[in-house]
């Protein structure tokens, strides 16, 4: 019994980080109706940024977070201008292909440089012990940082003028343009934000689990499942969806080998898309 409760708590901690990653995906979808297939790559880039910053540069592990957020934002803005801007207003097929090809280039470079072996960033943090179970400190801190970043995103979107502009563009781009909002700049800013969130999530995941260059596909699928649960284009739903996915994973790990996780997630993803196309936790958007 305690074992199940412990795995639920741990599932919530890990799941909130999945939610953070999915927020990046869903923000971009909500603002510009673009499915960003560089999402998985951005997550992996966050992981390797942590690996390089702690290993080669010597930054203490969690101090890498601001660098990754800023770097991710700048890369995201650049990506918008390279691969997305020309595709706005073209058939959705085209932006899927263009972001997918960027993803290939980055993964190809990554495998050429690092190969496909396992990497690990050792982070020393005391855990919290409850009965016979110890919750790793990295999981707790990752969830806390996720909450902080999500809170900051909320403040930005709902308490600043620029955030209001982002929401206006998400609501109706033409009307926003008519009100004098520089929509193109808002789009590139949102893309940058989305990539920064994915990178930060990748960094937090790297403090918890080992990773490979090819890990992006699996985490990208997790983000899709989360957005399907939470409703595409809905950052708050993404966080709830992430926690839900973490719970499902925690439960599933009790009954079957971890290698089945992807199969279960995929089945869940398709089932949710078919049964609840708007997301289970889709809140009324205002």
């Amino acid at each position, binding site marked *: 019994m305690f074992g199940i409760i412990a795995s639920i708590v741990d599932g919530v901690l890990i799941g909130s980080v999945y939610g953070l990653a999915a927020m990046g995906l869903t923000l971009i979808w909500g603002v510009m109706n673009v499915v960003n297939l560089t999402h998985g790559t951005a997550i992996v880039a966050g992981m390797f940024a942590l690996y390089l910053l702690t290993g080669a540069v010597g930054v203490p592990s969690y101090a890498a977070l601001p660098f990754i957020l800023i770097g991710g934002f700048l890369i995201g803005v650049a990506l918008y201008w390279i691969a997305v801007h020309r595709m706005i207003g073209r058939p*959705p097929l*085209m932006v899927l292909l*263009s972001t997918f*090809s960027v993803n*290939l280039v980055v993964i190809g470079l990554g495998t050429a440089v690092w190969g496909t072996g396992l990497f690990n960033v050792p982070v020393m943090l005391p855990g919290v012990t409850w009965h016979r179970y110890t919750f790793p400190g990295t999981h707790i801190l990752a969830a806390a940082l996720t909450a902080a970043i999500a809170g900051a995103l909320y403040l930005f979107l709902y308490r600043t003028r620029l955030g209001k502009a982002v929401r206006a563009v998400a609501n109706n781009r033409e009307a926003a343009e008519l009100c004098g909002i520089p929509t193109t700049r808002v789009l590139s800013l949102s893309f940058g934000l989305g990539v920064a969130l994915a990178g930060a999530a990748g960094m937090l995941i790297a403090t918890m689990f080992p990773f490979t260059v090819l890990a992006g596909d699996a985490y990208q699928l997790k983000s899709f499942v989360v957005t399907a649960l939470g409703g595409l284009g809905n950052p708050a739903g993404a966080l709830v969806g992430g926690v839900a996915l973490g719970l499902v994973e925690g439960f599933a790990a009790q009954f079957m080998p971890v290698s089945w996780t992807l199969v279960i997630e995929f089945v869940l*993803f398709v089932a949710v898309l078919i049964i609840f196309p708007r997301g289970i936790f889709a809140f009324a958007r205002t």
Partner: protein
Amino acid sequence: MNNGRTDSVVGDRPPPLLGRPFFWIVALVIGAFAIAPLVGANVELRERLLLAAVYITLASNLNLMLGYAGYINFGSIVFFGLGGYICVYLIGAREWPLAAAAPAAGLAVSLMALIFGLGILRLRGAFFALATIGINEGVQAFAANFEPWGGSAGLYLPMQVFAPLGGPMRALWVIYFFLIAVMGFSLYLSYAVKTSKFGLGLIAIGQNEDAAAVLGVPTALYKALAYSLSAFLPALAGGLYFFKSAFIQPTDAFDLGLSTEVMVIVMLGGRGTVTGAAIGAYLYEELRGSLLTSQTFANFQLVVSGLLLLLIVLFAPGGLMGWLYSRWPRTREALE
């Protein structure tokens, strides 16, 4: 109002197949594929053409979805890999002959695609694309965990399975000719679909799905049928291909690289064109061959295909055939 003109809604009926230059071009290509390696029993050339035939098969079937219906299918390699698995399993564990196992694999995968498609293709655009990415991950993880299929170690076939085809050496030639036939069927299937009412419906979906639905195209059914149809020949080719290797494992069967390459091929040749898929496949195979021989580029294959795809999407979304059509509009009448 004007009843005399209702026929023109369907468009001008194309001339019979035998009267089209396209038919003879394809026939010539198939003939060249079949005869060229026989001259001097050139095994190296045969292996290269075999790969080209697999590319052409996969590309022209992907084209049914990507080119005609405008639906991206990131999981097209699943058909190839699943077909391979089912065929190798039926031959190895159930001792079926190849002639029964390969079509059975094709039918089974096609049926699965139909059932899956009826569910998933209610989803529109981006949602469908996400589902097809998921299916690749999901099916690969399934194959890696499914015990009867050997898990991540995969399945092996003993050498005796080649005996009915006249021993391993002769079997390679027999499989080659089968694959050429599958390639030919793929090209004619693309053509037949394009000139049919069904194909017209798909192209209408690709241009504007809402308008197509309003005009009476049963969009969900047509998409599911196209999805299922585009599964049959790749699964058959997968069965033959992995029978030839006598070995199949999840990372080979559901190779992300191959599924990407096929997409690059369709875009390179020009999506929605039958000839484009074939030319794109051949050109890409040549390019890949020259890259693989150079040491520096062997590591950067994904990078090269990614860059190529990005450049095509950004600057030449029509591909080679799009360029050809705009340069010499008359070629539109001879080619498909």
